C-alpha cells in the first residue's frame, strides 16, 4: 500500500500536518507566560495531571516525527539518484527558497528539537533553573515553568538559538502546509491560491508568537520570580 512515492509522500504530509497542529497548540500554551506565573504554572501542572492524554499526544508526536523524517530521507535519496548528472545552470521559475531548503531546515529543526527537549523537558541544560518551584494557590509547590523559561531566555545564547530555530520552523512551514494539502489531493481552482497565502501567514504568525517570548524575556518585560 505504501510502496509508491506518492503514498509515502502522503505519510509525510499527514505527519507534517499533525506537527503543524502541535505547533499551534504548543504556542497557545506558551503564550500563557504573558498571563503571569500562576497561569502558565497551573497550565503546566494541569497537563501533567492528564497523563493519559499527555502521553497519547507525546506518542503520536514522536511517531509522526519518526515517520516524517524516515520517509523524507528515503524519498530524497531516490530523487538524488534520479538526476545523476546535474545541470550546469538551472533557472528556477516557480520553486521558492523555502521549498528548495526543506531538507536542510528540517534537519536543523530536528537537531534543535533534541536540544529543546533536553533543556525544558528533561532539565539537562541549566538544571538550576529547572529546579525552581512555585507555590500554586490551592495546590502547593509545583514546578516553576515561568521562572525557568524567563531565566533561560535571559541567557543570550539560549534565546538566540531558539530564535534561529523558530526561524527555520517558519521557513519550513512557508512551503510545508500548502504542499501537504496538494500531496493529499486538495486542490481547488479558486481556493488553492488563498490557501497558499494562508499557509505563509500561518508561518509568519507562528514565528511572531514563538519569538515574542525570548524577546520579552531579554527586554526584561518578563522577570523571573525572586
Amino acid at each position, binding site marked *: *500500500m*505504501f510502496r509508491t512515492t506518492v503514498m509515502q509522500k502522503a505519510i509525510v504530509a499527514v505527519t507534517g500536518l499533525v506537527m503543524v497542529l502541535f505547533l499551534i497548540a504548543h504556542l497557545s500554551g506558551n503564550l500563557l507566560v504573558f498571563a503571569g506565573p500562576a497561569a502558565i504554572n497551573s497550565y503546566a501542572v494541569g497537563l501533567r495531571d492528564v497523563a493519559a492524554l499527555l502521553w497519547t499526544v507525546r506518542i503520536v508526536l514522536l511517531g509522526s516525527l519518526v515517520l516524517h523524517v524516515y520517509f523524507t530521507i528515503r524519498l530524497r535519496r531516490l*530523487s538524488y539518484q*534520479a*538526476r545523476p548528472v546535474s545541470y*550546469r*545552470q538551472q533557472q528556477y521559475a516557480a520553486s521558492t527558497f523555502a521549498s528548495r531548503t*526543506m531538507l536542510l531546515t528540517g534537519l536543523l529543526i530536528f537537531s534543535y528539537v533534541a536540544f529543546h527537549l533536553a533543556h525544558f523537558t528533561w532539565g539537562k541544560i541549566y538544571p538550576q533553573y529547572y529546579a525552581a518551584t512555585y507555590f500554586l494557590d490551592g495546590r502547593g509547590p509545583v514546578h516553576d515553568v515561568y521562572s525557568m523559561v524567563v531565566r533561560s531566555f535571559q541567557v543570550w545564547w539560549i534565546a538566540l538559538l531558539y530564535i534561529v530555530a523558530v526561524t527555520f520552523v517558519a521557513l519550513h512551514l512557508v512551503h510545508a502546509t500548502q504542499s501537504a494539502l*496538494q500531496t493529499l489531493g486538495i486542490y481547488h481552482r479558486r481556493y488553492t491560491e488563498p490557501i497558499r497565502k494562508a499557509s505563509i501567514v500561518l508561518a509568519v504568525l507562528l514565528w511572531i508568537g514563538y519569538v515574542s517570548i525570548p524577546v520579552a524575556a531579554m527586554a526584561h518585560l518578563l522577570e523571573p520570580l525572586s
Partner: protein
Amino acid sequence: MKLTLHIWRQAGPNVPGRFETYQLDDVSPHMSFLEMLDVLNERLIAEGKDPVAFEHDCREGICGSCGMVINGSPHGPRQRTTACQLHMRMFRDGDELWIEPWRARAFPVLKDLIVDRSSFDRIIAAGGYISCHTGGVPDANAIPVPKPAADRAFDAAACIGCGACVAACPNASAMLFVAAKVAHLGSLPQGQPERYRRVRRMVEQMETEGFGHCSNHYECEAACPKGISIEYIAQLNRDLRRAELVGQELLP
C-alpha cells in the same frame, strides 16, 4: 546577431560529455531556435565536423520531439513555448547561451542533446489507454460526456510528452506527465472501468523507470509548454490514494 553557444556534446550513451563553444556571427532574429542550430550544423558539416544532434519533428510546437535546456530553462526562457517555436528575437546580440539535454536517470543521453524518452512510452503502455471493442465507428455522442469533464480531459490531453516537466523538476519527477495522462482518461466516462488500475500501474511504472518524487516545487507547471496545471497532480494523488486504501476489487 552574434551569439556564443556552449553546447553539450556527448558522442554516445556511455561516454562522458562536455560543453563545446561555438561562435555564430550572423544569426537572424527571425530564425527559430532550431533554425539557428541548423545554421550551426551546416557550418559544422562544411568544416567536416560532427553536427550537433538534436531531436525535432513538426517544428510547430505540437509533437513534443524537440527539447533542450537553454540557459537553465527547459525549452528556453519563453513561457508556454517549445524550443522550435522559440525565436531568436527572444535573445540579444552578444548573448551567451548554455544548451544542455534533459537531465534525468530515466532519460539517458543518446547523443548530444537527444535523450531516450522511451520511459514515457513504457508508462503509457502500463496503463495509459482504455480497453474497448474495435469495429464500426460508434455514433457521435453515444456516450454522454458532461462539458466540464470534457474540458478537463481536453486540457490534460494537451500534454505532448516532451519531458520538460522532468527536466525542470529539481527531483527529476515525471508526475506532471503521468498526472496529465491519468487525468485525461480518468475524467472521461470511457476511462472509468480502468481508472484505479490505470493510476496504480502508471505510477508503479514511473517509479520503476527511476524518476524522482514530487515535492511540490511546481517548476514543472512553469516549464510546461502546454501549461498543464498541477491540479492534475492533485487528482492523481487522490485517485492513487483511493486505489490503494479502498482496494482494487471494491472499485468500479
